[in-house]
């Protein structure tokens, strides 16, 4: 790490307000100069209040810096100053661009070429409420997995609810998750997401404007939403309430000229109010990740690749690109199932169905049916939602 980057990191860890950082750089030129400045100089030339100036000066102790470096080393945190060549190009173009980014994991963006992403070339953000319904999480997972299948990184905020589900779906599809935190780098917030947080670092990356140990203050979260929108080419809203942080992300995306896609919900559901309002205001309604990809491909001109079964990359087929359902019979014919299993499978749907309902329909004895369902579960064709409730397991692109 160069001297300048080192001092830039120090600056980003002590000052969280972007405007103040910019003022300091305008006054002193380089982070090194800021580091050298005395308390009086800070107060006079950058118009800092006394408290902040005092904090800057007192944080120059060896102990503070030592602790910071240890944290950075232990959690394998990398600091990208905006002059660093790995710093994402596209974040330089947004309003109020970040001056530095902390990153855990590997970054998915290519440098130089219009900030395009490796693999698919584009990235999609999935955002939504923290108070999600099981349905919303299901949809977020489906979308996350759908984008992952096409090699598109999925950006979200690692919050509870839809964010977490989007990341999980992306991980399930062996994709590249990008989590933008509103808290200091190096720890999950909320803590419940710690396991997900580690998985995201393993398979993708976690990004934050805030250095290690910066507390998760309420105003950080709406602020980081501009980065979620900035890192993505399109934003998919899954569930949003009437007054929601999600709508801030949508506003930022629209300011930055990104497309907004909305998954509709039931009109009676409070998690649908925000979504339906966005649709009313002209956002594009989507029901399938394929529709998003097709639209983005048409807009950006970036051909969308899809990872084949053998790991090779291929173009999307026209059907996939237009989002029309794949022929669902392909999968069925391939299944070497016993006749009872075929019968039961035929009665199952994507929405959970209860065991007793299946008994009525199939006419099997309870002990037989448990056996049939279990073997279907083992084949990975059926999912047990709860003790007694079963649904078909699929990517959401069949005829059910």
């Amino acid at each position, binding site marked *: 790490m160069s001297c300048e980057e080192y001092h830039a990191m120090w600056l980003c860890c002590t000052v969280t307000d972007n405007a103040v950082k910019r003022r300091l750089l305008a006054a002193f030129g380089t982070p090194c100069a800021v580091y050298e400045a005395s308390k009086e100089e800070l107060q006079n030339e950058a118009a800092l209040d006394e408290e902040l100036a005092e904090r800057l000066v007192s944080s120059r102790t060896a102990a503070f810096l030592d602790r910071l470096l240890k944290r950075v080393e232990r959690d394998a945190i990398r600091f990208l100053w905006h002059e660093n060549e790995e710093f994402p190009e596209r974040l330089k173009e947004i309003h109020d661009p970040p001056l530095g980014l902390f990153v855990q994991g590997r970054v998915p963006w290519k440098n130089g070429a219009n900030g395009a992403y490796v693999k698919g070339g584009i990235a999609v953000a999935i955002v939504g409420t923290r*108070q*999600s*319904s*099981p*349905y919303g*999480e299901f949809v977020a997972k489906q979308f996350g997995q759908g984008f992952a299948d096409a090699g598109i990184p999925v950006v979200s905020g690692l919050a*509870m*609810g839809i964010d977490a589900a989007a990341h999980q779906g992306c991980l399930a599809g062996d994709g590249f998750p990008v989590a933008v935190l509103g808290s200091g780098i190096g720890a999950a917030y909320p803590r419940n997401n710690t396991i997900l947080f580690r998985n995201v670092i393993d398979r993708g990356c976690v990004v934050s404007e805030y250095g290690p140990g910066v507390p998760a203050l309420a105003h950080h979260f709406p602020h980081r939403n501009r980065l979620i929108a900035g890192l993505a080419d399109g934003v998919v809203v899954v569930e949003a309430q009437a007054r929601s942080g999600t709508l801030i992300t949508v506003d930022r995306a629209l300011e930055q000229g990104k497309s907004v896609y909305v998954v509709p919900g039931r009109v009676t*559901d*409070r*998690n649908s109010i925000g979504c339906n309002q966005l649709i009313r205001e002209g956002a594009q309604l989507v029901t399938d990740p394929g529709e998003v990809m097709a639209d983005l491909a048409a807009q950006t001109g970036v051909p969308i690749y899809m990872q084949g079964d053998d790991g090779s990359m291929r173009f999307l087929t026209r059907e996939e690109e237009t989002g029309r359902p794949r022929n669902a019979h392909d999968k069925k014919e391939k299944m070497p199932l016993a006749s009872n299993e075929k019968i039961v499978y035929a009665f199952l749907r994507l*929405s*959970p169905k*209860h*065991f*007793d*309902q299946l*008994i*009525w329909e199939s006419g099997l004895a*309870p*002990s037989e049916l*448990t*056996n049939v*369902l*279990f*073997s279907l579960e083992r084949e990975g064709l059926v999912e047990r*939602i*709860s*003790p*007694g*409730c079963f649904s078909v397991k699929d990517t959401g692109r069949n005829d059910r």
Partner: protein
Amino acid sequence: MICSVYSFSVSGIEASVIRVETDVSGGLPGIDLVGYLSGEVREARERVRVAIKNSGFHMPAKRITVNLSPADERKGGTGYDLPIAMGILCALEILPSELTDGYGFVGELGLDGNVRGVPGILSCVYEAKRAGFHSVMIPAANIEEGALVEGICVYGVESLADAVRHFTDTGGTMAVPVKWESAEEPEGIDDFAQIRGQFLAKRAAEIAVAGMHNLLLTGPPGSGKTMLASRIPGIMPRMTFEESLELTKIYSVAGMLPSEGGMMRTRPFRAPHHTATIPALAGGGRMPIPGEVSLATHGVLFLDEFPEFHRANIEVLREPLEEKRIHVARLNGNVEFPAKFMLVAAMNPCPCGYYPDRNRCSCTADMIRRYQGRISRPILDRIDLCAAMPGIRVQELTSKDAPAGDTSRQIRRRVEKAIAMQRKRYRGTAYRYNSEVSGDMADRLFRMDHGASELLTLYAEKTGCSARSYYRLKRVARTVADLEGSETVENRHMTEAIGYRMEEDGHVM
């Protein structure tokens, strides 16, 4: 002169012999009662004095001292009235004291001299027989209960005069020991055939009963969880004499025997409300009486709205679930009650009750997690089977072509067969049911074919399930095989057992 007669004190469901010593001497007239007595025993002084007077006997102006021995054991209840009165009458030489040798006395006196019923008679008569008394005199109201014990003469008396007449002339009714026979059909329990649909839950209940596994029912409000649970005693095997006797003792001590008297012939179904306190569940009181866990012995303890129970109250179930008995520690000593119940718990899957029906349930994942997290994990660990019950639609209830379910009697036949297989397998061990078998014994005693053990290993590897869940599946699979009459646990038995599992992270859904 000093006279002794004998009575009994009940602690837990066991009785012990109490010696009632009476001395009559000169001095300030009056009756003194000593021997670590509680309030109601001390009040016997007035009852006995008036009852003796009103029975036509003369109380001379003497100093009477009564000691209940052993004097360091706390005595409660009103059953000492009759022995105290008999002791005084002997000491006053109204009754020749040698006549009362070999007799035990229990009963409460009214001021008019009538003898009234008391709880715990069965335990007292049992103890009398064990301690070598040839006869025991009890209130006529309790005569049927006393008659359950063979090999001892049981006399029921209506009044104190009646009791005295028994020795001087003839009085009191001698009880004829009753011949015990189990009821052919349990009374007062509705039939399983009345339940429409609910195949999964009915089958789970059958398996649970066949191996005495604990059962958790989940489902939306009105899906019939209580209906099903209340019918479970009806598919349990008929009670043996020993079981019935033990249950009768518990109900006798609790003063809850049915008014017509006699034994408990039907397996109990206890459904304490979720506001029940720890003493109500575990047993308690100054002189401890049995709580719900004991009253449900040999039957079903049903906890509806399981997550609504206070966690601390539920935790008291841990000891009875493990040890099949419960200790109640009180100032007056430590008593032990049997608590061999089958636990049936019922809950809604989420606060609104309709999860996973997303058309009706709008609870968030967090709400569901929090709701299900209210259940005590250690208790959940001891529940072997879990079955979800769907809401029933009206057309299913009224539909003509609905498959008729088996009657309770048909199910009970199958259960009895399965239990007979377990009896055979566990002969010479302390176990009676599959659910009680410890892990290493399960490995030794359960014969599993290759398919079943391979499946179980695969499942355990895939889900990373705990050792406890592993053995839980093994035990349930054993019961499924027993129901089929198969000595070997086969693949399909194991598969079915896995179908009733709970989720590995401890959440039901």
